[in-house]
């Protein structure tokens, strides 16, 4: 069992005890602990259950590569799932809970899955779909649902806040180990603007633990001095607890800073997402140790050798009393020496046939038993390491001999962390002597200038020995600075004694010829429960591509993205396929390097700041008068004004009737207003619209249609001719910006020699539709310009004064009523609205919202962009042929509308629909035909595009697109309801109110 040592611990402060809870149990640690070291210090080896088999799992690693120790942290509004205990710094009051267990960590029902493991092979999920459907529904799904998922989703709104930072630097150095420090120092001395970031709380990486000596002093001293030197350089910024999350095109990088996770403080942002543009990026991200694949390698107490010495050296935590170090390289001996010095028992099993390097000799001299040519047949124990069975590495594991142990330290060699190098396309090459992939500088990620913008340095570049790390990092830092434009000279590189070592021996199976029974208990991916035999099975079943094998077995697909399992899994696959490892290749490395919080991604963009809200000048009045808001684009428009004691439907009905009977007001300010002006404006208008707009007389208005080049109806609205070379185009509320961009695109990229300007003046004007039989009376009451039928007939406009307000008055109607749309300067909008309300009170003036607007236009059979159109509808489908000029040689969409498919007489066309029972047709309902199509679906012959209850007619009204619809007037067809029943509707004219247009033209 793990325990706290009496002395030592570089990071902990024993004078500052910290209390926390784990699964509700009170525990104690020290300032400087991680949650993982504190748990181990309390003897808590069992920290979670595996994903698929619910096997007991313990802490394996000491950093972000940890696959098992995932925790639920906090509660309610600060709850967070899937936090790694190894990267969670301890604070007073921390609450942690293990995940994926039921009913408790110690007694877990799901462990049965492990007994059933032969029924849960690789590709289990895929294969299961081939089984009878009833099996899936009644047997598999309930089991999978019960056991699926790590952690659980938070139920409360996050109480913390987050932010984004933008930074532009010459050189970004990722990783604060000795390589990152050296690279940053060289780049800074050369005069570059440098940002150095380190994911953990401490600088210096592994070097102080590994006993490196730099510039003649212990690594820790060199690190401290170098950090101080960097801190004093004005052109260098350094940030701990900031992880390089991703590298993207052209020197863009994301970093993830955890400001308060280690010391909660609600006044500060919890996380910060850095959006960085760097001239050059140096990845000094170190290397990760690999596990070894032997039976029982997932028992709590089996750890990475480097993690064992991290816990002993940094936290004074012993993972056990009797440690077996199993290694295939010299580095494992560092762990043996460390644990022996801490007073623990240790035996080394070296898979190599000989071990005579300096570290091995040092271990022997210290009295440590070293057994060469040995491996582990299996590790046994009930929920923890109890016995290690030792065997000949080169054979099949027969005749093993036991050692009593409570901890196994695996030293399987090192893999450079190449993730950031690879995110943006950097390629790798296989290094035979270390059995790892390293960045290939000939195939680096390229920037805009065609040159490499990422430089790997130190262990991340495959240099695993201190002196080489420092030299490599110095060169990378100086080069990055020079390439980013710095002209100074870097000082001297730090030096270290050369460390001699013997070659490592790649070990992918332990023992080499392990039986199936052993291999089926050897784990590759701890988090997703993938074993050696799963990968072998995938290979046998024909999954030759590593990307396919990954998905089939789920190897490397858990939240650790295969940091521990990647190379071991590849090697097993290569072995099963009888191929070279580099031929098999790696899977794709994708950002983020390590999971980052959703809060950090969102940053400040939440609540009111999520996106800007566009408000008309009358917004406050609407808000104070019961507006039921509807988002339209970025605008908020009143859907209806709900009075006390009224529901929204009653409000809509009241608004329609009041407008039809007397006087309604609509805030139409959101309608798009584009001014098109210039000597060639008429020619341009004729290209933009299907109608002839160049001949529109000054002072007149015309309803126009705009199509895309492929013929589909894109927007509509009334165009007014302002003067000889100026047209004002009204667009839909949602279409203003889009149509403005559409016009600019054609002007700039096709007809750039035409002399035309387009200006979007939507927000310069407030616009009010004054609608109803009493519309003229209220304007006359306000006084000013002549708004009589004679002076201002239907479909004309005039400029003048309404009361005190200078106005443009358009005699246009979207309701079928007598209607004036009046534009005043935006600054006058609210005052004008108030004046209309006051003058209109004697007529029972009623502001109405978008729903009343929609109902009244539907009663008149007017189409609505987005209801009657969906990007596949042409004007001809809507009976709008009258608005398509036959005289014009060309307009956008004309050629496309001549295509076969567009002239097909069987295209669905617009009609009105009247239910026989007066009910409202369901929105989106389909008109069903006879029989079924090739997919066994019911044949359809049309669909509903708009459907409302008409307060005017006191029954349902609808429009729809129906095959040969206009030729089938009076025919009754069936529309489906979601409950499987049908409703009968008669095909009628779309105009159901005032078909002669008498009311609007008075």
């Amino acid at each position, binding site marked *: 069992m793990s325990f706290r040592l009496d002395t030592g611990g570089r990071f902990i402060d024993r004078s500052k005890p910290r209390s926390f809870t784990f699964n509700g149990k009170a525990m104690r640690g020290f300032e400087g602990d991680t949650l993982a070291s504190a748990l181990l210090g309390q003897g808590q080896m069992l920290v979670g259950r595996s994903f698929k088999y619910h096997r007991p799992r313990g802490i394996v690693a000491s950093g972000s590569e940890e696959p098992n120790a995932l925790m639920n942290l906090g509660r309610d509004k600060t709850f967070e799932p899937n936090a790694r205990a190894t990267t969670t710094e301890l604070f007073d009051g921390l609450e942690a809970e293990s995940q994926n267990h039921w009913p408790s960590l110690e007694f877990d029902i799901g462990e049965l899955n492990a007994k059933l493991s032969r029924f849960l092979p690789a590709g289990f999920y895929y294969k299961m779909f081939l089984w009878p459907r009833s099996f899936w529904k009644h047997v598999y799904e309930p089991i999978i649902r019960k056991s699926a998922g790590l952690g659980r989703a938070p139920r409360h709104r996050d109480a913390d806040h987050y932010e984004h930072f933008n930074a532009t630097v010459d050189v970004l150095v990722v990783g604060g180990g000795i390589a990152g420090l050296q690279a940053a120092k060289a780049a800074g001395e050369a005069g570059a603007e440098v940002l150095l970031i380190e994911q953990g709380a401490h600088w210096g990486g592994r070097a102080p633990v590994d006993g490196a000596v730099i510039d003649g002093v212990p690594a820790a001293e060199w690190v401290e001095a170098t950090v101080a030197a960097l801190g004093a350089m004005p052109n260098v910024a350094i940030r701990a607890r900031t992880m390089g999350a991703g590298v993207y*095109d052209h020197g*863009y990088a994301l970093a993830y800073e955890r400001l308060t996770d280690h010391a909660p403080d609600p006044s500060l942002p919890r996380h910060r997402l850095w959006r960085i543009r760097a001239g050059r990026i140096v990845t000094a991200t170190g290397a990760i140790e690999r596990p070894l694949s032997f039976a029982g390698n997932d028992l709590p107490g089996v750890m990475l050798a480097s993690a064992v010495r991290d816990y002993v050296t940094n936290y004074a935590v012993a993972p056990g009393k009797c440690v077996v170090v199993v290694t295939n390289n010299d580095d494992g001996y560092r762990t043996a020496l460390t644990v022996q010095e801490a007073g623990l028992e240790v035996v080394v099993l070296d898979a190599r046939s000989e071990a005579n390097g300096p570290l091995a000799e040092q271990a022997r001299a210290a009295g440590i038993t070293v057994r060469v040519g040995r491996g582990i047949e299996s590790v046994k124990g009930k929920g923890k390491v109890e016995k290690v069975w030792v065997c000949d590495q080169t054979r099949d594991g027969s005749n093993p001999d036991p050692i009593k142990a409570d901890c196994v330290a695996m030293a399987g060699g090192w893999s450079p962390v190449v993730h950031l190098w690879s995110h943006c396309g950097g390629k790798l090459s296989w290094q035979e002597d270390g059995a790892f992939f390293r960045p290939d500088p000939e195939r680096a990620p390229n920037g*805009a*200038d*065609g040159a490499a913008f990422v430089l790997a340095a130190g262990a991340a570049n495959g240099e695993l020995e201190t002196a080489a790390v420092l030299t490599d990092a110095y060169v990378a830092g100086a080069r990055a600075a020079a390439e980013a434009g710095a002209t100074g000279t870097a000082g001297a590189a730090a030096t270290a004694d050369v460390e001699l070592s013997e070659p490592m021996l790649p070990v992918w199976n332990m023992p080499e010829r392990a039986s199936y029974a052993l291999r089926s208990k050897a784990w590759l991916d701890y988090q997703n429960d993938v074993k050696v035999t799963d990968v072998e099975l995938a290979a046998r079943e024909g999954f030759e591509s590593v990307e396919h094998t990954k998905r089939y077995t789920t190897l490397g697909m858990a939240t650790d993205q295969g940091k521990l399992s990647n190379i071991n899994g590849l090697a097993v696959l290569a072995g099963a396929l009888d191929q070279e490892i580099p031929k098999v290749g790696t899977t794709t490395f994708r950002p983020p390097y390590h999971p980052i919080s959703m809060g950090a991604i969102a940053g400040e963009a939440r609540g009111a700041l999520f996106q800007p809200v566009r408000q008309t000048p009358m917004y406050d009045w609407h808000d104070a008068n019961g507006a039921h808001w509807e988002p339209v684009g970025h605008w908020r428009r009143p859907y209806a004004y709900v009075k006390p004691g009224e529901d929204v439907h009653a409000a809509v009905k009241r608004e329609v009737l009041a407008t039809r009977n007397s006087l309604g007001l609509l805030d139409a300010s959101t309608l798009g207003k584009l001014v098109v002006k210039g000597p060639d404006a008429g020619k341009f208008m004729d290209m933009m619209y299907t109608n002839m707009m160049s001949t529109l007389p000054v002072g007149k208005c015309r309803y126009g249609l705009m199509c895309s080049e492929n013929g589909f109806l894109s927007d509509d609205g009334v165009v007014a001719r302002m003067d000889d070379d100026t047209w004002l185009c009204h667009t839909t509320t949602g279409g203003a910006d889009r149509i403005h*961009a559409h016009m600019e695109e054609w002007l*700039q*990229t096709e007809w750039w020699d035409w002399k035309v300007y387009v200006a979007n003046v939507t927000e310069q004007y407030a616009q009010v539709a004054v609608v109803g039989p009493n519309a003229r009376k209220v304007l006359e009451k306000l006084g000013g310009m002549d708004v009589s039928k004679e002076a201002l007939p239907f479909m004309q406009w005039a400029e003048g004064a309404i009361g005190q307000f200078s106005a443009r008055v358009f005699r246009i109607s979207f309701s079928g009523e007598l209607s004036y749309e009046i534009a005043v300067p935006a600054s006058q909008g609210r005052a004008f609205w108030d004046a209309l309300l006051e003058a209109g009170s004697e007529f029972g003036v009623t502001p109405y919202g978008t729903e009343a607007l929609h109902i009244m236009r539907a009663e008149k059979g007017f189409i609505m962009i987005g209801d009657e159109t969906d990007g596949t509808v042409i004007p001809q489908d809507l009976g709008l042929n009258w608005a398509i000029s036959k005289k014009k040689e060309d307009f956008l969409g*004309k*050629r496309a509308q001549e295509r076969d498919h567009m002239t097909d007489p069987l295209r669905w066309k617009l009609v009105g629909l009247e239910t026989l029972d007066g009910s409202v047709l369901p929105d989106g309902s389909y008109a069903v035909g006879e029989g079924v199509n090739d997919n066994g679906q019911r044949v359809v012959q049309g669909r509903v595009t708009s459907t409302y209850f008409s307060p005017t007619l006191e029954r349902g009204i609808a429009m729809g697109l129906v095959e040969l619809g206009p030729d089938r007037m009076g025919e009754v067809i069936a529309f489906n309801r979601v409950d499987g029943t049908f409703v009968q509707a008669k095909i009628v004219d779309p105009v159901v109110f005032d078909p002669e247009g008498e009311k609007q033209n008075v």
Partner: protein
Amino acid sequence: MLILKCPYCGVACDETELHAGGEAHLTRHGPGSSDADFEEYLFMRENPRGVHFERWRHVYGCGKWFHAARDTATLEVFGTYSAQVAEPPKDVRAAITAKVPGWRWRDLS
């Protein structure tokens, strides 16, 4: 996230400031054109691995459309230039040739 220099305002634009507009140098075919020509114009696009010419708009900046010549595989940018030309200017083509001898794109080389 790409950086492209807007040839109008001179700003080195972040991709988030830009709107991508697809292939550059299309020839518009309107009424009177053959079905084949119209189909080619409306639907058929190059999808090269390598040298490509694209339309971009500096939409959250000066609002101007421009053209970019870049490599879709290496992401190298050979140059940006006015949208108001029917084919890439000589200096841009020379810059491409210097980096990618023997390049071809539609009828250009």
